[in-house]
């Protein structure tokens, strides 16, 4: 490299700072400067981050001022977090994830800083086996009343007789389709989902960035089990996924924005997103593939060494208060297995076919299997599909 280049760099930096100083001393008003540079906005944001300026209130016991929650997109009522902060002085910091694998990876790497997270049924035995979560101290969660919960959706939280996780809500994984673009055709199967993606819906379909559902629902195309780890069946699924990939709009578990803007017309979809979309845009139809697919239940759990565990317990307990939980359901649109909460919900919601699909559809669905979470072939298949 030439000599003058090396001479250049420090001079240029000095010069640059001088230029900036001159600008600061210059004729432009402070207000204009803040506006133009975005500094005004930055100051406002920083002020919000100073603990002394945040709302706080005395609460029984010292909970600290922060709790970190790792959860899924569009999964809570923001107003409930605000109410929690008002009542306890604890701010809720929310981290959003797109797959259970991502959550597991963060916990395996250590130092996640989470206090509470939301794992799905099939992952909990692995977390226990890997020694990554703590059994819950149920005395600190008086709002969890085991007898009120539907055991189907609560049982996966108990491993070896110890309760590691308490149920949040449950749901199904189907797909949502914008019927404005289906030319009157009614979609009912996973086969149609994949086939129409390759033709009329080319460039308009989204799939999850998530091995369980994206591979599982590709397996359903061939009539295999959603949970298959059979190498031959996975090879078929991979072939389908690679064939479909050029026709996809995106691979992303946060699909609501693209569906709402009209860029995407169809996406793999969880119950609550289907309900939220359908409420705002009636042309959005939630479909459970006739061949089957996933039924699941999500839980609140606490990682080992949660830095603010007292606040974590307080948050779980708060969110399981039936009155609070009912507000959660109204916001996220997922059914809960808690009879006390359901008693507070409007009748239409308890009869909504998106939340409570017909029995013959439900019967075909499978709970995710623990093996899929750690199976190296499924993990590598999805990674290969994405980087193809």
């Amino acid at each position, binding site marked *: 490299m030439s000599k003058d280049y090396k001479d250049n760099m420090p001079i240029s930096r000095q010069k640059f700072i001088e230029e900036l100083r001159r600008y600061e001393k210059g004729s432009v008003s402070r207000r204009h400067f803040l506006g133009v540079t975005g500094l005004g906005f930055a100051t406002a944001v920083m002020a919000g981050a100073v603990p002394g300026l945040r709302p706080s209130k005395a609460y029984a016991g010292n909970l600290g001022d922060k709790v970190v929650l790792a959860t899924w997109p569009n999964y809570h009522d923001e107003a409930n977090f605000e109410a929690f902060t008002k009542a306890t002085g604890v701010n809720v910091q929310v981290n959003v994830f797109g797959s259970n*694998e*991502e959550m597991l990876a963060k916990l395996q790497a250590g130092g996640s800083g989470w206090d509470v997270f939301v794992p799905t049924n099939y992952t909990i035995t692995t977390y226990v086996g890997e020694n990554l979560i703590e059994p819950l101290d149920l005395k600190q969660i008086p709002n969890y009343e085991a007898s009120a919960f539907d055991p189907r959706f609560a049982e996966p939280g108990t491993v070896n007789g110890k309760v590691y996780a308490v149920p949040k809500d449950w749901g199904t994984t189907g797909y949502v389709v914008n019927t404005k673009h289906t030319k009157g055709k009614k979609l009912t199967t996973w086969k149609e989902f994949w086939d129409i993606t390759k033709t009329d819906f080319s460039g308009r379909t989204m799939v999850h960035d998530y091995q369980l559902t994206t591979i599982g629902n590709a397996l359903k195309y061939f009539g295999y089990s959603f949970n298959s780890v059979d190498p031959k069946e996975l090879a078929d699924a991979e072939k389908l996924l690679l064939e479909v990939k050029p026709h996809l709009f*995106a691979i992303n578990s946060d699909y609501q924005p693209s569906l709402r803007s009209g860029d995407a017309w169809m996406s793999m979809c969880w119950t609550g997103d289907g309900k939220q979309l359908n409420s705002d845009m009636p042309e959005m139809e939630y479909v459970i593939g006739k061949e089957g697919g996933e039924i699941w239940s999500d839980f609140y759990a606490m990682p080992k060494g949660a830095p603010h565990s007292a606040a974590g317990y307080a948050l779980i307990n708060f969110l399981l208060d039936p009155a609070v939980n009912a507000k959660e359901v109204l916001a996220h649109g997922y059914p809960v297995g808690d009879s006390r909460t359901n008693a507070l919900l409007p009748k239409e919601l308890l009869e909504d076919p998106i939340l409570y699909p017909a029995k013959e559809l439900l019967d075909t669905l499978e709970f995710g299997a623990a093996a899929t979470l*750690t199976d190296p072939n499924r993990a590598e298949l999805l*990674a290969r599909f994405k980087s193809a």
Partner: protein
Amino acid sequence: MQAKWINRLLLMPATVWLLVMLVLPLIFVIVFSFGERAPAGGYIPAFSFEQYANLPARFTAFKNTLTLAPLGTLAALLIAYPLAYYLAVKANPKWKTLLLVMVIVPFWTSILIRTYAWIYILGGRGIPHLLEFIGIDGVRLINTPFAVLVGIIYGYLPLMVFPIYVSLEKLDKRLLEASADLGSPPLRTFRQVTLPLSIPGVATGCMLVFILLMGEFLIPALLGGGKVFFIGNALVDLFLQSRNWAYGSAVAATLVIIMLVTVTLYMKLVARVGEQREDVSIL
């Protein structure tokens, strides 16, 4: 003697930093790359070349990176050079500082937020919607390699503008007058005087942008919709989804080797151009 000790003492922080933050992690990466994925994900020690043998499975990601990174660098250069030239040579000195600040101002907002803005600009309600008004239907921009390229140019432009600006700013204007006096038309003056003298800035800018682009993952993730995969995205996936640290390390080590080779070749090329230029200036 004392001065020597002071020198050593002053160099300590940088040395410790380099050892802890660069050398040590690099050793980890190399050791891990010969290992295996633990049953539930992670790493178990082993000595196998299996991870390296599996590299072709990430061919497309390497290919995307190795085409879009140079392409993005070139495009940024083609846009940055005239801009830097205008700022350094043509702009009214009264406005120069303001114009420079305007080039920097976007840097004061997070790249994440600025890239999100592009999702809306390139999405169905943005530019394609405007194009419909003038009768061009069915244009799709978001989640294409083109969108990623736009994001790259936008995000990295200032890094290209400043080094070029500095080298043009330093340019001795008397040389231009001399060239004109000796009967050289403007275009030839540019080609034979301005351009060669700004090569150090161009070289620095290209290097800065290229090296950062090789590791880019945010822009392809947001503007490529998970479909235009860079090697950075493949790495994020391997560590944060499939939890295959061994394979991830092998991919990372390969990327480091590719970078070393390209950057060395590039430096050699720049050095040769530099020598030629000095020969010319002696003449």
